[in-house]
């Protein structure tokens, strides 16, 4: 199969540039020139062609809660959102904490998902923070990284051992940084908004305290570590220092923390309840700047499907999380349209950096890279209707909002996973 994309605005995060041109894909791989006449020529009409998004931290609710999201529905949502690789989270029920469960997940993904799936496994059994999982077996079975997701391993001794063991395997550990006792029971960031709304809240400082602990452990253990979400200004200097000290640490941020703030919760809108809670506008701006400077490496959707029942509850009782696979690209375009980031900077965080961190081949447009591509119109406006989403769960905070940026087509390994009608 030979594909030729013509008249494209190529977004190349590796070269850090945009250019007009064409791109050839043969047998699923990007090539400098096709060996013969193309089977299909795609006229991009001057729209953007970029490496497919590598979304680090997607929750597909298999096993356990397939009614919320399956590999089929998540895969379709991903394809429609320009995501060509879902790096999935193990916070399922049961947790993905044994090679057997991981094999089940890989098999389900293989059978049903139209985009690539790279699974992560839990760091501790049942994500209970009591015993480490069989890291070696799980790594052999294909676990790309180890994480207890939004649960902090409160037992520092256990975490230090898990990090030491992981370091021996060269495995990546993904952590959620939050001082667990200070943040207990909180569902908002402390400040004017949370106090007026009467919601239990946590100081943004709890994030830095969690980060500081984990950075100390990295210095002890030499582990490879990625922070799932840095969302506060006050955590940034600690991250910067850890980097300068040569620790193997990278950091991400969820799209919702880059595009929304604490006031969006307004009248207790539970679709805006995420973990960690939405932050102040000052924090939001500081974190965007950190993405621009490269201090924060990765932007992800933190896709978390929740059904209506778990959201139609008083704010404190409602489940956390928002779906994001389909809205990641248009929401991220807000950062470009607002002048915070260039497209190539954005794609570094959406695609190149997460691929590199996980040792994946994607995220690039250079020769030999997989033909994982997204074609999109960065300016096409639309109003989001949550019921039009492909995800089984419709819990998006962007419902009814005006957005810009539409995916026109998504290719995985050179075959079309989605084409706009």
């Amino acid at each position, binding site marked *: 199969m030979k594909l030729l994309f013509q008249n494209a605005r190529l977004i190349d995060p590796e070269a850090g540039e945009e250019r007009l041109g064409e791109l050839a894909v043969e047998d699923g791989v990007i090539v400098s020139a096709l060996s013969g006449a193309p089977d299909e020529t795609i006229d991009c009409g001057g729209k953007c062609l970029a490496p497919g998004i590598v979304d680090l931290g997607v929750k597909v609710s298999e096993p356990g809660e397939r009614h919320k999201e399956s590999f089929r529905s998540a895969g379709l949502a991903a394809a429609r959102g320009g995501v060509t690789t879902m790096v999935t989270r193990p916070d399922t029920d049961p947790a993905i904490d044994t090679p057997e469960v991981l094999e089940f997940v890989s098999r389900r993904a293989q059978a049903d998902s139209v985009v690539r799936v790279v699974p992560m496994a839990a760091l501790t059994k049942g994500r209970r923070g009591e015993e480490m999982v069989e890291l070696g077996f799980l790594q052999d079975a294909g676990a790309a990284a180890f994480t207890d997701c939004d649960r902090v391993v409160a037992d520092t001794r256990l975490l230090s051992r898990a990090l030491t063991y992981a370091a021996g395997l060269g495995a990546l550990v993904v952590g959620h940084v939050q001082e667990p006792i200070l943040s207990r029971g909180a569902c908002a960031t*402390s*400040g*004017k*908004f*949370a*106090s*007026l*709304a*009467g*919601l239990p*809240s946590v*100081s943004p400082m709890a994030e830095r305290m969690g980060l500081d602990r984990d950075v100390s452990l990295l210095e002890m253990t030499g582990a490879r570590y990625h922070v799932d979400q840095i969302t506060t200004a006050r955590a940034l200097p600690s991250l910067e220092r850890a980097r300068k000290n040569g620790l193997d640490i990278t950091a991400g941020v969820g799209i919702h923390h880059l595009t929304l703030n604490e006031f969006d919760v307004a*009248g*207790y809108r539970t679709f805006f309840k995420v973990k960690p809670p939405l932050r102040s506008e000052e924090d939001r701006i500081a974190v965007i700047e950190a993405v621009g400077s490269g201090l924060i490496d990765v932007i992800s959707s933190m896709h978390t499907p929740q059904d209506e*029942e778990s959201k*139609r*509850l*008083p*704010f*404190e*009782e409602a489940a956390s999380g928002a779906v994001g696979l389909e809205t990641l690209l248009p929401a991220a375009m807000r950062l470009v349209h607002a002048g915070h980031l260039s497209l190539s900077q954005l794609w570094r965080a959406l695609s190149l950096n997460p691929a590199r961190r996980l040792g994946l081949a994607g995220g690039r447009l250079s020769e030999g890279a997989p033909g994982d591509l997204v074609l999109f119109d960065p300016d096409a406006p639309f109003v989001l209707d949550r019921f039009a989403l492909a995800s089984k769960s419709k819990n998006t905070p962007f419902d009814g909002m005006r957005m810009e940026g539409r995916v026109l087509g998504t290719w995985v390994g050179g075959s079309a996973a989605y084409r706009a009608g």
Partner: protein
Amino acid sequence: MTFRQTHLLGIEPLHPVEITTLLDLADTYVELNRGPEKHAAVLEGLTQVNMFFENSTRTQASFELAGQRLGADVMNMAMQASSIKKGESLIDTALTLNAMHPDLLVVRHPHSGAVNLLAEKVNCAVINAGDGRHEHPTQGLLDALTIRRKKGRLHRLTVAICGDIAHSRVARSNIWLLGKMESRIRLVGPPTLIPSGARDWGVEVCHDMETGLADADVVMMLRLQKERMSGGFIPSEREYYYRYGLDAAKLARAKPDAIVMHPGPMNRGVEIDGTIADDINRSVIQEQVEMGVAVRMAAMDLLARNLRDRRAA
């Protein structure tokens, strides 16, 4: 008459004119309640349901009496002992109840925002009787009525709200209300019981009673919730009483004609000295209870008028 609300979920959405309208009407109900015939038929034919997801004797009794005096059919539902325990969600409870065609729904719930959520799902007028740490609008209104009757106005007063502000919905409703009426508000309490960000609310914050009470027209004490002790917010009750309990010496800092208020139930000897609470020249605590019934009658009357107008339209 200007009162446009469909529900009474908080003081925050009210316009000052709406507050004045409601208080003016409540004044007439005070007279009615003091007369020999304590009955008006304005809610005749309407059904009032009191849903209390949190224990309450005083507030529930006040709403019940208010409804009965206005001629409504009043039903109390003790939600703590009912289907909530069987795992029914708040929305389902609301929908079940809605099918019984209530006209006025009085709701108290332990979670902030729960009453707002419920109000979205029912066809009747909803009154918030306290949700979590968010608002308790009828308490704010009854406090305002008490102050207005004693001081003759609600503007340009210095009001010290003292004690556990952080966990108090009463404080939040009062801050909204007194702020809208252009009074000067001071929050007085230990730093652990002052919510973060309180200084952005347009109020003064003091951590000692001497400064906080200086030249106050109104001293509003809040109940120290005993369950907070386990959270380590204060070292002990006796230290709290020593530093923040209202006694004669601390009250002497306020204006000579300052009134003392408390939403009840009181912890005598913790946040307030018994003799102050009982001093009929200073304490208006009993009047607050009386005003509570009148304010709730006024609130239900106004909401019922709007409800009937909507249904007629």
